[in-house]
C-alpha cells in the first residue's frame, strides 16, 4: 500500500503550477473572465502544449492514457489556480467518447487540442437526475432528428462538439431508451445562449430544433446510453472532487496567511483561540476531503458499477460538506475583505460552492449512496 504519486505525476503538477503562478495570475484570470469569450485561446494553447489534453486520451490516439489518479493531480492544480478554461468539459466529453468506443478520430483531435467538447445533459426539470430527459431523437431515414433544450451546459458555448443525451424510447424518467449523440455545435438548428457563471466560468443553454444527425452521430448503441452516461458523469464528479481539494488547499493557505499577518488588538488574529480552532477544523476537513478524492479516483474505474457509484457519491457528498465548511469559514476569518470580490479566496469559495451543485450536490449523493444495495447490509 502506498499513497505516493509518481515522478511523472509530480512533474505534471509542477509544470501546471509554474504556469499558473507565472502566466495565470489572479489579475490575468480576471481579465479573461471579463473578456467577451470568457476563456483564453492563449491559455488553451499552453494547456495543450503541456500535454494536458493528451493526458486522458489513449495512447493509440496520441494520448498518454492517464489514469484518474493522473487526472486528480492535474485537477487539483487547476482548482488551486482557479483556471476557467474549458478543460474539465472537454475531458468529460472525451470520457463519453472513450466509454462508447469507435471514436478514435475525435479522440485524436482532443489529444491534439483541436477539439473542445461539452456534455449537454441537464434539462430544466431534471435537476441532478440525468435520466430525466425530455429531449428527443427521432429516427429519420438512416439518421435522427434532435429536438429539445439543455440547460446550464458547462462550457457549452466554447465547445466545438456537444455530447447530447436524448430519448429514443421509453418514458421521460426511464434509464432505458436513452441515446447519446455527438453534435457539431454549429449544426443547423443548434442555438446557444452563452453566459458567465457566478464562479467566473462559462455555461450555456442550448436548444436543438430539428437538428438533422447522421447515423454516425450515435455514441454506442441506440437506447443503451444510460450506462455510459452514468459512468462518465461519475468520472466527471471525481474530477470535480479533485478540483475542490485544490481549491480548499489554496483557500486554507490564504486564510492561514491572513491569520498570521492581520493585526487586531495589537496581535495577529491567529493568536485568538476561537479562530485557531476553526482553522484547525478547516485543515481536518481538507484532509478528510483529500482522502475521499483519492479513494474516488482509485475506484472510479472499478469494474463493479455499485462500488463505483458508492465511492464516487461518498466522495462528492463528503467533499461538498468539507467545501462548505472551508469556504464559509475562510470568508468569515477574512472578515470584511472576505466578502469583497477583490480576493482570490472569495473566488475559491465561489468555485467550491458551484462545484457542489455540479453533477449532484451533497444531499443528492448522500441519497444515492444510501440507495446502493450495499448500504443496507448489516451485522
Amino acid at each position, binding site marked *: 500500500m502506498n499513497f*505516493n504519486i509518481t515522478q511523472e505525476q509530480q512533474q505534471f503538477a509542477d509544470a501546471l503550477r509554474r504556469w499558473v503562478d507565472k502566466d495565470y495570475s489572479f489579475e490575468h484570470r480576471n481579465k479573461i473572465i471579463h473578456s467577451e469569450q470568457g476563456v483564453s485561446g492563449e491559455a488553451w494553447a499552453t494547456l495543450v502544449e503541456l500535454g494536458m489534453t493528451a493526458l486522458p486520451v489513449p495512447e493509440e490516439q496520441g494520448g498518454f492514457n492517464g489514469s484518474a489518479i493522473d487526472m486528480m493531480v492535474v485537477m487539483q492544480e487547476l482548482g488551486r489556480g482557479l483556471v476557467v478554461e474549458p478543460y474539465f468539459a472537454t475531458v468529460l466529453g472525451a470520457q463519453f467518447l472513450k466509454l462508447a468506443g469507435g471514436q478514435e478520430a475525435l479522440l485524436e483531435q482532443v489529444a491534439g487540442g483541436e477539439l473542445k467538447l461539452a456534455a449537454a445533459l441537464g434539462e430544466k426539470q431534471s435537476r441532478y437526475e440525468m435520466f430525466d430527459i425530455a429531449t428527443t431523437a427521432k429516427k429519420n431515414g438512416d439518421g435522427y432528428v434532435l429536438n429539445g433544450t439543455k440547460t446550464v451546459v458547462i462550457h457549452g458555448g466554447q465547445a466545438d462538439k456537444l455530447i447530447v443525451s436524448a430519448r429514443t424510447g421509453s418514458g421521460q424518467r426511464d434509464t432505458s431508451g436513452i441515446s447519446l449523440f455527438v453534435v457539431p455545435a454549429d449544426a443547423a438548428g443548434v442555438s446557444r445562449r452563452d453566459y458567465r457563471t457566478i464562479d467566473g466560468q462559462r455555461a450555456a443553454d442550448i436548444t436543438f430544433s430539428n437538428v438533422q444527425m447522421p447515423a454516425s452521430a450515435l455514441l454506442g448503441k441506440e437506447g443503451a446510453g444510460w450506462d455510459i452516461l452514468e459512468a462518465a458523469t461519475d468520472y466527471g464528479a471525481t474530477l470535480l472532487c479533485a478540483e475542490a481539494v485544490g481549491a480548499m488547499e489554496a483557500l486554507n493557505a490564504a486564510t492561514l496567511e491572513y491569520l498570521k499577518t492581520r493585526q487586531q488588538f495589537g496581535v495577529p488574529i491567529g493568536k485568538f483561540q476561537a479562530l485557531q480552532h476553526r482553522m484547525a477544523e478547516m485543515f481536518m476537513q481538507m484532509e478528510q476531503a483529500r482522502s475521499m478524492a483519492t479513494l474516488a479516483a482509485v475506484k472510479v474505474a472499478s469494474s463493479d458499477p455499485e462500488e463505483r457509484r458508492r465511492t464516487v457519491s461518498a466522495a462528492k457528498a463528503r467533499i461538498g460538506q468539507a467545501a462548505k465548511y472551508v469556504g464559509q469559514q475562510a470568508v468569515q476569518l477574512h472578515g470584511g475583505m472576505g466578502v469583497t470580490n477583490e480576493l482570490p479566496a472569495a473566488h475559491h469559495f465561489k468555485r467550491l460552492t458551484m462545484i457542489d451543485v455540479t453533477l449532484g450536490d451533497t444531499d443528492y449523493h448522500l441519497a444515492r*449512496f444510501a440507495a446502493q444495495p450495499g448500504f443496507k447490509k448489516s451485522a
Partner: protein
Amino acid sequence: MDLNYTADDLAFRDSVRAFLDASLPKDLQDKVLNHKRLSKEDIVRWHKIVAKQGWVGTGWPVEHGGTGWSPVQRHIWEEECARAGTPPILPFGVNMVAPVIMAFGNEAQKRHYLPRILSCEDWWCQGYSEPGSGSDLASLKTRAERQGDHYIVNGQKTWTTLAQHADMIFCLVRTDPNARKQEGISFLLIDMKTPGITVRPIIMLDEDHEVNEVFFDNVKVPVQNLIGEENKGWTYAKYLLGHERTNIAAVGRAKRELLFLKRVANEQRKNGKPLLEDPVFASKVASLEIEIMALEMTVLRVLSLESAKRGPGPEASMLKVKGTEVQQMLTELMVEAVGPYALPFDATYLEGEREHSIAQDDDAAPLAPYYFNYRKTSIYGGSNEIQKNIITQMILGL
C-alpha cells in the same frame, strides 16, 4: 499509488484471522459484540491468550519480547481484533509505561517489569491527571520528597482508569517545587499495595465504575522506582504521549459498530418500514458511513507516512479528533435508532448477571449507557480542543 495490501500483508491477515477464530472465547466475544461490561477477569483472560501467542507487544522490538511488526501489520491486527470483537489489550502497561521503561529505564527495571507487562502479571494504571489540572498536565501538584533511599509521596491523582484493579501505577510527581513547572517533575513507578494509597471510585454517567481518585498519604516509594533522572519526567511523559497512537482513531471498531447500527435500524420500524429506509435517518447513517470511509483513508495515509518513518506526529491529533467524533456520532445514532427503548436501564444485564435485559430488548439495553459513557472520548487523552491547539501550533504554525 496502490491502495491494495501486498501478498505478504494478506497472508499475515489470514494468520491473524486463523488465530482469532481458534482462540477468541465465544463468551468473551458475545460480551463485546453485545456491548456488555467486561470484568477484570475477562480482560486478563484475553490478554493471557494473546500473550501465549506472543502477540501482546505489537509495537515492541523483538529483543524485549515484542512482535517487531510493521505499522501496516499492527493496523491489520487491530482491525481484525475489532472485527472479531475481542476484549481490549489495555494500553496502560503495554503501550504507555513499557515504551518509557524501554527508552529511559535501567536494566533492572527492564528485566523486572517488561516480562510482567507482557504476561499481565501486573495490571498498570496511569497517574497523570490531578484535580484542577485537566489538560494542563504540567500544573500537577503531587509531591515526592527524597528521604534517603525513598521518596515520600503526597497528593492526589484523578480520572485513573481501572485503578481499582491495578497492581502498579506510573505517576508524574513534583520533585522540585521551585523549578519551572515542566522542569521539576519526575516519573515514578508505585506499587498500589503500598500503605498510604487510597482508591476512591468515581461513577460515570452510565453508573459504571471505570475511573477513580487515587490518594497518596506519605507513601514510601523506593528510589529504584524512579525512571531515568530526577526532574526529567516531563520529557518522558511527552515521549509517552507521542508514542503508539496509530489506533487512536479505532476505525476497525467503528466499522463493526456501523454494521450493528444498521442491523438495529433495519429491525426498528417507522411508518411500517425499516427505520434504515427512512430518508432522514438513512441520510444521517450515510453521512456517518462516509465519514468512517474518509477516516479510514486518512488513517492509512498517516500509516504510510509512518511506514516511511515520517510520523505520526501532530497528525495523531487529527485522528483523535475525527475518530472520537465518529465514535460519538455512532453512539448518538444508536440511541436515536432505538428511540423509546433507550429508556430502560438494566445494569444487572450489562454486568452479565442476567441473561436477557429486563425490558426484553438486548440490543437496545446497552445503547444509552454507551452513548453517555462515550461523551468522555472528546475529553480524555487531551481534549479535542487541546488537539486543535496542537494542530494549530505544530502543523499550521499559528
